[in-house]
């Protein structure tokens, strides 16, 4: 009946075994890296000097050099736009996620017999 009928039968692996092995592999990788690098996984942050603006470090002249108020405003504005648009886009994601779940509920499931629930004229069946 199904397209798989004439394929050879093999003894596979249970999904649980596959999932446990996958988790095991990831844990092993994490422990290995942890052992090799300790807590300093983010190696690029290690040897940084932190000359602060307050301390008159390298960054100071950049701050002092900032004399264009409208550029400052532009950046404050775009920060606000990022957050506002981000929240709106999140709303759209949730709306579509919800809508997709409702639409999926209207579709036939894989184990339903073909033809069931299909109106011949494409009309609603429920």
């Amino acid at each position, binding site marked *: 009946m199904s397209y798989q009928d004439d394929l050879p039968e093999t003894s596979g692996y249970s999904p649980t075994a596959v999932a446990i092995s996958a988790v095991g592999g990831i844990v092993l990788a994490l422990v290995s890296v942890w052992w090799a690098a300790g*807590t300093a*996984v*983010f190696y*690029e*942050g290690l040897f*940084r*000097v*932190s*000359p*602060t*603006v*307050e301390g008159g470090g390298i*960054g100071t002249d*950049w*701050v002092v*050099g*900032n*004399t*264009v108020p409208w*550029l*400052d405003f*532009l*950046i404050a504005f*775009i*920060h606000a*736009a*990022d*957050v506002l*648009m*981000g*929240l709106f*886009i*999140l709303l*759209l*994601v*949730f*709306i*579509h*996620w*919800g*809508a*997709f779940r*409702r*639409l*999926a509920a*209207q*579709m*036939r*499931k*894989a184990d*339903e017999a073909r033809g069931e*629930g*299909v*109106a011949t004229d*494409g*009309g*609603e*069946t*429920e």
Partner: protein
Amino acid sequence: MTNLDHGKFTRVTTTFHSLLALDVFLLFFTGYSITFNDELWWLLTLMGGNEGVTTLHRIAGFGLIALIGFWMILMITTDTGRSNFTEIMPGGDDVKAFIQDVQFVLGSADERHPNAKQFAGGDHDDIPLLSYVGKGVVFIFAIELFLLTISGLLIWSKTGLMQYFATKTAAMAFVTFHGLLGVIMLMGVMFHVFEHGFHPAFYPVEPKAFIPRELIPETHTDGGIEALELAPSWRTVSNVMGVLTVIGIVGVMLGSVFDEGYPVPRELAVGGGPESLLLTIAINAGIFVLFVGLVLSMYGNLLRVRWERRLEEERRQPTATDGGQPDDD
């Protein structure tokens, strides 16, 4: 019945969409491995460090200007192009479609508004070329790409920019502006990938963005969504991708607040430590969503090639009994 649905776009449009996607993905991967270098250090290293990444970013930027120029000229000089301007104008129906989508999710509307429907099914006539989201995407992406191109050109040569703005801080401000501006598009593209990759009727990709309308028979779809079979993996995969999309959007949104780099952070070692592990995971989740988008774009083109071959074979065998195409030649 397949999930092919009605065709919408011309071959030029679908090809342009694929090229623009490739180019924009490359711009995202290079640009945001600079902006979020604390979180995406591996991506920065993978693409050749600072120099490699900025070179690739400039090459992709050049490609983007060429693509935008091509599209603007095509839209203005051709009848088909000019007719698109009326199709993309948002109207009252689009606002209604948004409100009805909210009602649909909450259960107080039975179906989505025609201006929100991605799957047309049997009734093609009342489905507009672009949904309300599609129109929003066109407008926001057009504004974003225009401003990103202008600010990108301004910071192409920092010393050149400093001729106009006396200080290097001002020049850096434009770099920051450029990066922060793209965040909106970055979040938008994550949503775009989710919207068009994980609609249950089209999962895992919406073919009409890749297969030109001229290749999709109008008679192909003759039923509603309830006639389609839901892919068994849809529920799990769409949930995982939904979660990753939300985490990715929240990640880059928060990252844009913390990792701005202007005027100059109080301490040079911004983030990058175990204390920002959550932000690192979130931003990487976002990059993963974009990577899935890139793969799905490739897959969409693979579907197009396979569909073209199938049509060609059907044309060679005019005795097709399953509703094969009448020969147009």
